[in-house]
């Protein structure tokens, strides 16, 4: 085994690709003859070919499957094909009833509607944004809109008190300075 490993490492690199093709029966006649003549003199490449012949056919072996597997397989494909055909024919039956021009006409109509909506619908969107703001206000407050004014006045009073406080603290600081 160790001898073979050494042979692998020191193999004829320039011939390996050709040997693979030779094994698979590929390549031009001249190339094949060149490989054959090389194999007559090179023990390493003969080992390489032996390895390929020992390994590759075993890798391609596949399990024989019973006939009923293939029968079922075929039946399933045919069933799926029929389903597929029915779906296709359903679509095809729709298209001729409307005529071939309906699809581009429908597409154009959609584009026109969208364009009109974009041009003239800006005002509506701003209203919608106000509406979303109103949606955030609890329902019990909305039911009585006068309460909203009450809350508004509370905010005003709060800000007045803040101003007065600020004014008071400023006066105190002026008095302290004058002392």
């Amino acid at each position, binding site marked *: 085994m160790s001898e073979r490993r050494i042979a692998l490492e020191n193999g004829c690199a320039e011939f390996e690709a050709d040997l693979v093709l030779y094994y698979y029966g590929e390549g031009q006649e001249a190339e094949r003859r060149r490989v054959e003549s090389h194999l007559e003199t090179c023990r390493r490449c003969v080992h390489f070919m032996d*390895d390929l012949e020992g390994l590759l056919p075993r890798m391609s*072996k596949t399990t024989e499957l019973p006939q009923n597997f293939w029968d079922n397989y075929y039946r399933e494909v045919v069933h799926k094909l029929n389903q597929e055909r029915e779906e296709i024919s359903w679509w095809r039956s729709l298209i001729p009833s409307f005529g071939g021009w309906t699809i581009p006409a429908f597409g154009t109509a959609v584009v026109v509607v969208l364009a009109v909506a974009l041009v003239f619908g800006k005002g509506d969107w701003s209203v919608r944004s106000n509406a979303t703001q109103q949606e955030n206000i609890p329902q019990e407050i909305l039911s009585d809109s006068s309460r909203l004014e009450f809350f508004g006045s509370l905010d005003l009073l709060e800000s007045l008190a803040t101003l007065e406080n600020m004014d008071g603290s400023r006066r105190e600081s002026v008095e302290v300075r004058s002392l």
Partner: protein
Amino acid sequence: MAFCQRGETKYFEILVRRYMEKAFHIALNFTRNTEEAKDLSQDAFLRAFTRIKQFDGRSSFYTWFYRLVVNICLDFTRRKNKIGWESLEATCDGAPERAELTDVSSLPEDVTMAREAKRRADRTLETMPKKQRTAFLLRNHQGLSIADIAKVMKTTEATVRVYLHRAVSALRQSLLEFV
């Protein structure tokens, strides 16, 4: 093919019969799970049916169809890899769907060795770049020519040769002790 492109399933069913085993085994190579392989390959047939009008006849149907299957499988493995490596490990340990590198008629120790080799091969395939893995699976497991693989993968033959060589070298390195 013209009948299939008109949406007639009975003609498409002939294609299903012809390619179902290949489609299933490609998916199985990617997923290593029978149920997932069945679902993915059946999904590929449905997609092929719905997209059959996109098939322009410049390549053969099977090249076009293989491309669909491979893309579906790659999408699936990409999504699955996001879920995690551990779940993938659990799937392949628990489901002995693939007989690669295993021979049940051998001695118990041989079976253990073969299982270990299979595990290592699976892991090497999992960790190698997707394009290398795809090229390898299509060549080694599906027997596609390099020219066809190039069409399926939408790349050049030279690139496929490089992918194939790298994949085979990586597998040989990882499995050398089992040869």
